[in-house]
């Protein structure tokens, strides 16, 4: 029983981790808060749903389509919510603009598909896997594997490639990085693209795992992932992954052995405590967060 809950928690947590990593990239590298990120996640779910149900694509097509679509939405977001605003003068305006973008995305989905959940099915049944007492559906396992692969690949990109080096340079000091010849413009765009692609993958995978997608999932998962980013450490990639997986397990256990609402209280209580006591997060380096806020 407990093993099953932990496995379910890992599945849920992989969604949080994927979304939180997107927040972390944008916040950590660019010092920007993107409050539309949860709605990009939701859009991924709906794009996947559209490709499966209306365009009748196979599962892999829907997953790839959702990733590409959400990546494009994220690029559009950068174009309308961040690029037109002088970021050195206005710190609050871009955050508010992303809230506007989130409203637009959410309302578009509500107007097109309505506010009730839509059923999402991969069309693969009877492939459940049993390990001891733990039962895992094929779709859930697929989702977990894809999420883990994406995170490992991203970790390698950040640590091992020239692009990743550029990203870390901008995170450290954008002005100096630019002076030293880092193509800031390109890296900002790619960062938004990657963050959207990950959110899109998380969106369709979560829709497949739960069997449905609804307009309010963006707010729900988006906010929890935001808390995950803070708890894991603003700008810390590993922290976001770890805190996301832990939150997934905690939430599933809270629902199984207590009340779902207490799970939420734990999330927000931890967020407040972390911000007050250790703003750099549980896994972040203190020097990183205290510098610019």
């Amino acid at each position, binding site marked *: 029983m407990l093993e099953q809950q932990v496995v379910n928690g890992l599945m849920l947590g992989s969604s949080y981790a994927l979304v939180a990593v997107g927040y972390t990239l944008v*916040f950590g590298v660019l*010092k920007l*808060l993107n409050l539309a990120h949860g709605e990009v996640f939701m859009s991924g779910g709906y794009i996947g749903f559209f490709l499966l149900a209306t365009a009748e694509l196979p599962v892999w097509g829907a997953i790839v389509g959702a990733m590409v679509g959400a990546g494009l939405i994220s690029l559009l977001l950068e174009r*309308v*919510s961040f690029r*037109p*605003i*002088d970021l050195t*003068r*206005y*710190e*609050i*305006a*871009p*955050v*508010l*603009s992303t*809230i*506007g*973008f*989130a*409203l*637009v995305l*959410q*309302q*578009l989905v509500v*107007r097109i598909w309505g506010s009730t959940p839509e059923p999402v099915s991969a069309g693969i049944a009877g492939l459940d896997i049993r390990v001891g007492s733990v039962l895992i559906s094929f779709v859930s396992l697929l989702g977990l594997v894809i999420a883990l692969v994406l995170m490992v690949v991203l970790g390698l990109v950040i640590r091992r490639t020239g692009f990743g080096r550029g990203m870390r340079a901008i995170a450290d000091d954008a002005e100096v990085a630019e002076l030293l010849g880092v193509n800031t413009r390109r890296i900002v765009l790619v960062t938004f693209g990657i963050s959207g692609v990950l959110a899109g993958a998380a969106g369709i995978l979560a829709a497949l795992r739960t069997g449905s997608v609804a307009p309010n999932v963006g*707010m729900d998962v988006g*906010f929890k992932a*935001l*808390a995950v980013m*803070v708890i894991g450490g*603003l700008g810390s990639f590993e922290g976001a992954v770890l805190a996301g997986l832990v939150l997934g397990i905690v939430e599933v256990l809270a629902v199984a052995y207590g*009340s779902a*609402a*207490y799970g*939420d*209280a734990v999330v*927000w*209580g931890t*967020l*407040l405590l972390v*911000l*007050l006591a250790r*703003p750099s997060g549980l896994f972040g380096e203190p020097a990183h*967060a205290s510098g610019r*806020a």
Partner: protein
Amino acid sequence: MSEATRTLLVLIGINMLLAWGAYLVLKTGQLSLGQAGFMAIGGYGAGLLMAERGLALIPAMLVAGTIAAGAGALLGLPALRLRGLYLALLTIGFGELVVVGLANWEHVGGVAGYPVPGGTSLGLVWGTVAVVLVFLVVLSRSRLGWAMDAVSEDDVAAASLGVNVTYVKVLAFALGGFVSAVGGALFAGYQLFIQPGNFDFFQSVLIVLYVVLGGLETFVGAAAGAIVLTSLPELIRGLEEWRFFVYGALLVLVMAVRPQGLIARGTLRAPFVVARSFARRRRGEGPMA
């Protein structure tokens, strides 16, 4: 006056108060995305005081406002070390925690909601608006008001000029909390039934929207935003369905072309400046003459 007009005027008044609550915090350059949390403290606080302590709405509203001011000061304290986006995250956390707390509090009905004794009248709402307006006018011409503007521009520079930044920031949160809670109490006294869902993040966003679309720099802008956004859906039929889509698109558009909001400090002076220079030119005293 028709019932519909009366309702609209009450809602406009309440939303103006809520907008001013957020404006007071923004005046020091701090973004609060948890103002609905203070509104909830006002609504539930006043409701409990009326139902269980037998208070009338006005004293209940003032007591709940004071409690919210205390909560605001507590939330403002971390502002000493958290700035900008970190502070915005903290206020989101505060707002969500209030909603989750209320949803779990069986005594006030949990998620289902809580019935509140009434008492909100059109006169009370606009009387309160008038009082807060006078306060804002006085504030904008006082040393404290200037200190708040200075902190908003550059808090390090303000501190070097002798402004007590800590005091100003914490006070801004306390004042904003008080005004938002008063708005929340009037809201509860008008609705007669409140739920945690009335005070969620979406409500906080709506409140900030009033201020931001109108203008972040003046209380006139905040009030104008509340008036226009509250009456627009009533005046234009058919907009109701697309209301939030339009709000979202407007927000993106306004931030892109005018990040300080539609009505800024200079905007209010501009007509006077133009009129004065015209008058001067007519008298032949202008720089051109």
